């Protein structure tokens, strides 16, 4: 229990430090956050207009599209605000910049992930929470479920990110590959999985867990399915475990870049 609390304390301390650093450049912080908020609103407006003109998914109404976007945006926002290096870690590995974390008495993966915060991430969080509150009129139970699903989604994002970024241990410069994999995950997560068929649908609910990030949570909120909720937790835990395991295996192959670096 104590190590767990210590880890939470570390995450909290980094979050506070990163926020303080962001507030040192508050105009920049505010402008990036606002830009992401507007960006997300544009996406949502586009898809609402699209689905209203072309009702592709039977039974889906505007609130479902909003819920899907709200959950994906909030979870991605929290994931990249707290674990800001989740997308950049492949480059850190490739450049041999992990040394600074290896020398410290904390879990290397966690430490490397939390040492940076994405400024635009807060725009995603504000957007997700805001549109969920404003456009779906949620009850207290909806909020509880929304928060739980977002937390579970953060596990999927971070676990998947850790997994693909670890490719750098084997193939070297894997930043482009990891970025592309994350882009694919995010892109697919904002579509209702029912538009896909056969093996593609299977892939989106397993190897690339995009269906679990957007469509499944939206369906859980709509239909209150306990089976899907349990499956969601299981997938989240599985990706966190897999990401940690592959990172640990990869770390054995790590070669230092012999660089003087600061934690970024």
């Amino acid at each position, binding site marked *: 229990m104590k190590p767990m609390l210590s880890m939470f304390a570390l995450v909290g301390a980094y979050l506070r430090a990163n926020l303080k650093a962001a507030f040192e*450049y508050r*105009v*920049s912080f505010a*402008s*990036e956050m*606002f*830009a*992401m908020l*507007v*960006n997300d609103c*544009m*996406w949502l407006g*586009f898809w609402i*207009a*699209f689905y*209203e*003109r*072309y*009702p*592709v998914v039977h039974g889906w109404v505007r609130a479902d599209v909003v819920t899907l976007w709200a959950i994906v945006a909030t979870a991605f926002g929290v994931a990249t605000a707290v674990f800001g290096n989740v997308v950049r870690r492949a480059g850190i590995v490739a450049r041999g910049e992990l040394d600074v974390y290896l020398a410290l008495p904390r879990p290397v993966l966690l430490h490397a992930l939390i040492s940076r915060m994405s*400024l*635009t991430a807060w725009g995603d969080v504000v957007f997700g929470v805001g549109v969920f509150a404003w456009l779906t009129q949620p009850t207290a139970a909806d909020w509880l479920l929304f928060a739980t699903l977002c937390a579970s989604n953060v596990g999927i994002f971070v676990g998947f990110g850790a997994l693909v970024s670890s490719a750098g241990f084997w193939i070297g410069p894997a930043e*482009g*590959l990891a*970025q*592309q994999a994350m*882009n*694919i995950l995010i*892109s*697919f997560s904002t*579509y209702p999985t029912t*538009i*896909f*068929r056969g093996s*593609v649908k299977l892939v989106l609910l397993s190897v690339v867990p995009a269906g679990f990030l957007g469509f499944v949570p939206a369906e859980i909120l709509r239909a209150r399915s306990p089976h899907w909720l349990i499956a969601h937790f299981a997938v989240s835990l599985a990706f966190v475990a897999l990401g940690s395991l592959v990172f640990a295996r990869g770390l054995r192959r790590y070669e230092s870049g012999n660089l003087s670096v600061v934690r970024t």
Partner: protein
Amino acid sequence: MQSTLELRRPGGVARTAGKLWALMAASARRRLGHLGELAVRSSFVAIMLFVFSQLWREVSLHVTARPGGYSLAQLVWYLAFAESIVFTTPSNQEPELDREVRTGDIAYRIARPLAFPLHHLAVSFGDRLVRFAFNLAFGLAIAWLLVGTIPLRLEAWLAAFGAALLAISIDELVVLTLSLTAFWFESTVGFHLLYRRAMLLLGGALVPLTAYPDWLAEVCRALPFQYYIAGPAALFVGASARGFGALVLMQLTWASTIALAAYALYHFGLRRAIAQGG
């Protein structure tokens, strides 16, 4: 003294054009040296195309009317061309030019015998030409695999390629203009993000403008983003090159306006530049 002056003088239009060409070619060669990265990035075009083909296939099952007047095959080929233009943009949120302005590296750049913005335009254009070729090869191959061929006419293809190259040039000018605001702002990431999103959603990169709801199509037609993507892509799948002249005229008008804005920003921005240390 004389040699210093010669070093800093651009050397006339012909010599400047020669330098720009050399920079473009070097940049294109450098990009060709990273074939793996090119292939990975172009594969994203293929994935986007696959997703949209699935989406439009579902639409065609539920909607009897042709979306925007396009058949499913035409839509997929339209998207292949449109995404090929969109995915020529670099993946980093903050272009190199912004970083140089913010960090003071501009001090080294402006001493070179070529205007700093022109240097960036040439390097970036060479890079994007190679990306465009790769994206198009991937995109068209996937479109062919997904929906087969559509009737294509040579004059429409040539017109579309010409318009696409102009579109990429205009996009470069806009990115340059936004980057030059780094003389005044701490970060330009937000500007670039919003510009890219507006181009994607209002420029017809995901859906032809004619397939939008009427009110949204009207908004898009009033904005210049249509000249980047929707214009060239519509020519590509069109029955002829009709409309090419009007499109190019609007593209050139827009390019001139942006170039003037970029020139003004650079002119006034340089006065604010402060370089410290070495």
